[in-house]
């Protein structure tokens, strides 16, 4: 975690210390005693202050039962501290693979929490540095999948931020926590533009199609029987009414056999990120309209095809184009 320049020296020291102690970890991580920290919450401080007030009045009035209550409360506080610590100890957290997202959405890093002991782990919090908190209870000897949420600002490979696993269970007087940074990446596609036009010059369009706006008017090419999977907005409602209700699908010229090349270099007036965002939108639109499309960026291309796998490899290429490796969470 890079250390912001505007922090105080003490804070910077703490952050560096944390970073040194909690380096990136590959695979499941079990919470060890020496890496669990515990401090009283403000309620814990208030509780302690109350016990001290009782103790002082017990001393002053020489009152045995006030002593007893004060000591009982101290005992409760101590046991609470113990249980809070125990609530984390031994819990194992395993990173699972995250689903790719588009830039600007929140990334969900799935984590499997494994509780090897018989006792349930209640109220475990996964606290992301972006302020998202997920609460989860893990029953005894069980595994629960939960998610760590983080913001994504730009495309690329987003690695999971250093997050805190914390708990205040059972009484909320203490907070036990540890930091962990797990080797866990989330692919972030470029943010698609809300609307995109096909390349104006029609480069790469095979067949007799002229360049067309994908969203909007397509060339009407005739009618055929409705087949399952046809988009509803292609149903010819007027024809259907005439033909006693059997659905008829309008066929548009490019839906059947058109083939598009989406080319990075065809968008020269834009900067890199804008081009990628536009291409991203076009990939999505072509996919939803079932237009076969290929993708070409400088140095790489993917042959025209359709389908989820094709879409994902195209989006991955767009996401990683020009980047090396992953970028860390808050750069």
């Amino acid at each position: 975690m890079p250390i912001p320049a505007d922090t105080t020296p003490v804070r910077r020291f703490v952050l560096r210390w944390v970073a040194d102690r909690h380096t990136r970890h590959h695979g499941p991580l079990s919470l060890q005693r020496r890496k669990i920290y515990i401090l009283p919450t403000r309620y814990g401080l208030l509780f302690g202050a109350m016990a001290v007030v009782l103790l002082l009045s017990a001393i002053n009035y020489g009152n045995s039962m006030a002593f007893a209550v004060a000591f009982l409360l101290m005992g409760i506080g101590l046991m609470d501290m113990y249980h809070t610590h125990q609530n984390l100890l031994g819990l194992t957290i395993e990173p699972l693979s995250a689903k790719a997202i588009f830039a600007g959405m929140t990334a969900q890093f799935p984590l499997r929490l494994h509780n090897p002991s018989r006792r349930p782990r209640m109220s475990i919090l996964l606290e992301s540095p972006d302020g998202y908190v997920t609460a989860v209870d893990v029953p005894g000897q069980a595994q629960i999948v939960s998610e760590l949420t983080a913001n994504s600002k730009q495309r690329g490979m987003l690695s999971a931020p250093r997050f805190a696993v914390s708990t205040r269970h059972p009484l909320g007087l203490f907070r036990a926590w540890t930091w962990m940074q797990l080797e866990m990446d989330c692919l972030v596609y470029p943010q698609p533009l809300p609307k995109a036009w096909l390349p104006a010059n029609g480069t790469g369009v095979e067949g007799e199609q002229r360049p067309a706006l994908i969203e909007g008017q397509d060339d009407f090419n005739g009618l055929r029987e409705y087949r399952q999977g046809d988009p509803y907005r292609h149903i010819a409602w007027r024809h259907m009414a005439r033909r006693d209700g059997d659905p008829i699908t309008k066929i548009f010229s490019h839906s059947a056999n058109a083939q598009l090349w989406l080319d990075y270099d065809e968008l020269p007036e834009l900067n890199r990120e804008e081009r990628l965002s536009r291409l991203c939108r076009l990939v999505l639109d072509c996919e939803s309209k079932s237009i076969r499309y290929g993708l070409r960026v400088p140095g790489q291309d993917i042959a025209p095809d359709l389908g989820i796998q094709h879409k994902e490899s195209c989006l991955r290429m767009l996401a990683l184009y020009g980047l090396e490796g992953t970028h860390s969470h808050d750069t």
Partner: protein
Amino acid sequence: MIHDEALPKPLLNGVLLGLIITLLPHVLHLPAWLIILALAAVAWRHFAAKFHWRSPSRPLRLGATAAIFVIIYVGCGGINDPHAGVSLLVAMVAVKLLETKQRRDAMLLLFLSYLLIGSIFLFNQHIILAIYALGAITWITATLLQAAQENQNLAWRLAVRHSAALIGQAIPVMLVLFILFPRLSGPLWSVPHEGGKGQTGMSGYMEPGSIGELSLSQAVAFRVRFLDKPPQASELYWRGPVLWRFNGQSWSTDDRPGDNDLSKLELQGQALRYEVMLEPHGQHWLLALDMPVRTNRSDARWLAGQLLTDHEVNERIRYLAISYPQYRLEPNLSAEDRQRGLSLPVSSNPRAAALAHQWRAQGLNDRQIIKRALAQFHDQAFFYTLHPPKLQGNTIDEFLFQSRRGFCEHYASTFAFLMRVAGIPARIVLGYQGGEHSPISGYYLVRQADAHAWTEVWLADAGWVRIDPTAAIAPDRIEADVIVGLSGTTQRERDGMSWLHQFGLAWDAINYHWNDWVLGYGPERQQQTLRGLGLAWLTPSQLVLLMTTLVLAILATTSTLLLWHRQPRTETAGLQYRRFCKSLALLELIRAPHEGPADFGRRCAQQYPELAPLINRFIHLYIEQRYQSQTQVELHRQMRRLLLRLRWIILRMHLARLYKRTVASQSSKP
């Protein structure tokens, strides 16, 4: 925990219930209007949440706060008094309730509840209240647990169970801290004393009827444990104040410094050592067996046959004392004391005075006069009663010649008066007589009802001699409603021990130990305990170190026990199956070695169709458990419940058969 979120209703109701529980016992010592106000605020908060009422406006709340504070400040005369402090706490709770909206307000209220329950003990430390407080703390902690849940609310039953477990684990820590935490002997800041308010006990003043009132009270005056062989019950005269001054109607202590010269006391015979636990009576004297010599209290001194402390006894105290039942006090009476022992108001009670003068004129000596006076009480129709007629004017004349019905103070007063008139120095001693021996814990229990007054007369050579004129009354003239007997045996003992009375004694024994060991655990008791543990050499800082070490040891032990308890029990399914088989063996269904659970279950079910559903279900669960890699808690619990029911039914069937067989075998015999 998102603390600014609105308060969930179940949590709010939990907090409110906790407040009701903690507020109620404060009725015992705080003004009732304050508690009613606070309870009204609790009720308001409940309905406000139900019907979405709005909180009162800020100025209104502030105004109410200020008003309550002023009333408390004026009513209690400052805030140094614990009454005022706790009243303010209650008022704070009431005001806080008006603006409880968020989780953090609920947390604050819970902490205030803890403080409220702890502060009850500043007023009353009875054992029942302690048990109540433990329950209340369990509930408050359960609510705290509920408030700290991040996801969903626990079932209350579960929350209470968790909280009870937590408290169970906290109790060892509490015990260690309680025993080892260094105790101070003085207060940190000045504590206003209540000046014996509401305490029962005798005063340094006696008039007709003043002890009679006390004799109705079953309240404990003090308890005594003898370290030596206890004397006869009839010899148990517990000395309190000595009254010299008589104004014609009532007797009182005089303010003279008195003589604290122990050399005037000649001791004879065996010493008696004993320990007294004295209930607070708001006075300066310590009760001790006739004749006390010294105590282990540094603030107590001997003063002409009384033991006096420098401070009023406003809390329960404990002391060791030494007495000599046989003694000779002041064989040579100073002229001044002689004067004190003879002084009488002029021309009071002329008829009684005439009687005494007449005895003297008859030429009787001192001892004969004493005998004559006692004979008067015995031979004439004097009655001993709790309900003597009211006397006015010359009370002694009236009592001696008209009413002739009285309680010990009437007899003591009359006797002392007659002695003084006859020229024998006399004085009144107030105290207690007798005491009930508690067979359970071996101490003597002396109640306010045992309060007594007797006289001491001074005789040349013998010094001050105790004369109890009440004892001279003929036994058949003691009225039945008198609880205190004359010779130390009480009505209660004569009645024999009913179970209720036994229970009362057992309860008093518990209270005694509670008072002695728990409430009386101060610097001295702590030293005593440490000596018993062989730790008396520890300095306070070493004590704190030891305390910390022990607390850590407790934590380690607890964690080991809990971890051990939580180890997965792999064989439990098998264990339950074995128990199942053992139980069925009672019905002569014995599993053959080759029989699997399914076969055995089927055979049993055929034999006992009424048990079939239970057996089939159990076997089903067992097989499911057995062949599963992981034990499942829910299945396990079901199995246990089933087994419990099965064993119960089988046991009943088995007993019924046994019974039938026994009956049959008996009837077959001639």
